[in-house]
């Protein structure tokens, strides 16, 4: 269901993830009986719903969680899936839209900070490919970083697209739509137009380099513990 999106066309497209494979980012955060389970992964919405329960049971069994988690996990996944599916029938207008993606995540002992631009219109984009290349290039050894990076990117893309769709619903009429586009993240689109004008170059200014540079840090155990404690405190 990929329409060739030309730069000036504002034809509506059926809602989907703006990536090559239409996968939904699912985040789980369940707390029962003093045990907390947090997880994040990508899900294929074309999998049958029976898959949800199977996955929940598998996870609970592998992680040796108490069985109450099964229903809760399954429900949470199902809710997020239904939300995604409810978006799916609707149209979305994605004009030329470049969104900034910020990565700021800690996976086990690896800390990653990055900032880059992503074209929302490019339906052949692949966060997984990006993550793979990223890990290869940065020489990251921990195999869990890749999926976490891909997930982060996907989640942000999902948010952008979902909010784009919501704005369309709230405002009627194309004029309203155009305004909406320009207001949300459209600032970047305008920036791009500026960039491609004659009086500026595509190359980034040197002083902005540090903003867009990826940073990969390996933490020691104490730092990890400190960070974890701070995160826990923040969430509670």
């Amino acid at each position, binding site marked *: 269901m990929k329409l060739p999106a030309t730069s000036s066309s504002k034809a509506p497209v059926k809602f989907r993830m703006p990536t*090559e*494979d239409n*996968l939904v980012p699912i*985040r789980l*955060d369940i707390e029962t009986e003093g*045990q*907390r*389970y*947090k*997880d*994040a*992964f*990508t*899900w*294929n919405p*074309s*999998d049958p719903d029976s*898959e949800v329960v*199977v*996955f929940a049971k*598998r*996870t609970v*069994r*592998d*992680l040796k969680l108490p069985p109450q988690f099964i229903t809760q996990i399954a429900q949470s996944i199902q809710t997020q899936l239904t939300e995604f599916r409810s978006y799916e029938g609707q149209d979305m207008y994605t004009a030329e839209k470049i969104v*900034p*993606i*910020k*990565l*700021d*995540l*800690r*996976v*086990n*002992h*690896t800390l990653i900070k990055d900032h880059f631009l992503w074209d929302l219109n490019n339906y052949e984009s*692949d966060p*997984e490919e990006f*993550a*793979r290349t990223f890990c290869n290039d940065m020489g990251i*050894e*921990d*195999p*869990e970083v*890749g*999926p*976490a990076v*891909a*997930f*982060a990117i996907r*989640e*942000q893309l999902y*948010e952008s697209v979902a909010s784009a769709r919501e704005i369309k619903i709230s405002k009627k009429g194309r004029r309203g739509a155009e305004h909406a586009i320009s207001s949300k993240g459209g600032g970047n689109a305008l920036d791009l137009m500026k960039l491609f004008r004659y009086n500026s170059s595509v190359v980034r200014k040197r002083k902005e380099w540090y903003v867009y540079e990826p940073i990969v840090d*390996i933490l020691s155990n104490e730092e*990890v513990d400190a960070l*974890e404690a701070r*995160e*826990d405190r*923040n*969430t509670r």
Partner: protein
Amino acid sequence: MAAKSPVKEPPGTSAVNPTTPLAPPPVKPELPSSSEPDVVNVPSYSRWFSFDSISECEVKFLPEFFDSRSPSKNPRVYRYYRDSIVKHYRENPSRKITFTDVRRTLVGDVGSIRRVFDFLETWGLINYFASVKTLKWEDKETKSSAASAESSSALKETSKRLCNGCKTLCTIACFACDKYDLTLCARCYVRGNHRVGVSSSDFRRVEISEEARSDWTEKETLQLLEAIMHFGDDWRKVAQHVSGKSEKDCITHFIKLPFGQEFVCKESDSEDVDNKFFSINNPSDAVSESENVGATSPSKRMRLTPLADASNPIMAQAAFLSALAGVEIAEVAARAAVTTLSDVDDRASKGSLMRNTRQQEAEVASNGDATQNALARASVDASSLIEKEELDVEKAISGIVEVQMKEIQDKIIRFESLDLQMEEEWKQLEQVKNLLFVDQLSVLFHKSNARKNGDRTEENVKTDVS
């Protein structure tokens, strides 16, 4: 505590912090020391596996990657999943890897990763020989699978074994084939659920002793019996009542208990034996019967496969049960079932055909090595049967006699009535005779009168003329 703690910041900021502090620090493990040989066991039916290629087996079982329905699922991605999962497992072959470990390290949607993982696990390319039961067996596993890495004959030492056919745990007895390095549980062996080219004669039976796991103290036995009295067939509750024994242990031990100890009277004896077999094995009547046939012919002892004709599920079940239980147990069970059956037959008073077969079976059973108990009981039963028969015969005779008497009585009554009728008819006849006589007399009178009158008239005429 299963706390994994990413921080979800409010959606205003666009920073996201997923974290998973589960895996060990990303230090490459050192190469395994040379004391452990670098051998990984792969089951023989997975010989097609190679890192360099994709076999038709994989295409068949995981078509989603190969039918280009989805742009992200292509063979390259499949190989990436497969290779990384297998490598991950082979880093530490004695440890079972879980799906959750793996999916955290792979980029992609969890549904397809799960399918690849399941496929690899089913085909024994990962988690092969790793225990599927509780963690406490893992230590034994690592020791024994390290030994088994040396030579396949060391298979005997592993305490928990997975069947190659159905991937279940072999518990009581299993069949091992050294030629092709296969292990089958009793069910798969009986069903012939092994690769083509391997015949059932290549297998030998390996007992896995269960009693070593649990010694039954007196207290536990007592608890077991109490529980059975209270809960009857509900083995779950029985297991709960007996401290420290699982359901299967309870059932096994219960069967092994000597018969006299468990039952109160002989009547309920046979019924309980029935119930016990019925509840434990969930067979129908036919199974115990067919067990008879199966086990009482000693010539068929070793050749179970003729009975394991898959087209007859009951026979397969019987063969499986006798394979599982061992030969002597099956024999004793069969004999007990025979006795029970004969009782049941008697009560239902089936035709003589059943009696004949029963006698035959009883004969066959007694021809074998019979235990004293069974024989004595059989003879006692036989004498009681004889007495019953005699009583029956007497009753029958007296019945017949009564019936005959009634017949005779009826006949007498009928004859009497006939006599009466005859007499009446006689009387009537007499009356009629009398009447007739009277008529005759009157006719004679009239005749004589008429003649006299005729004479007188003649005289009158004559006188007139003269």
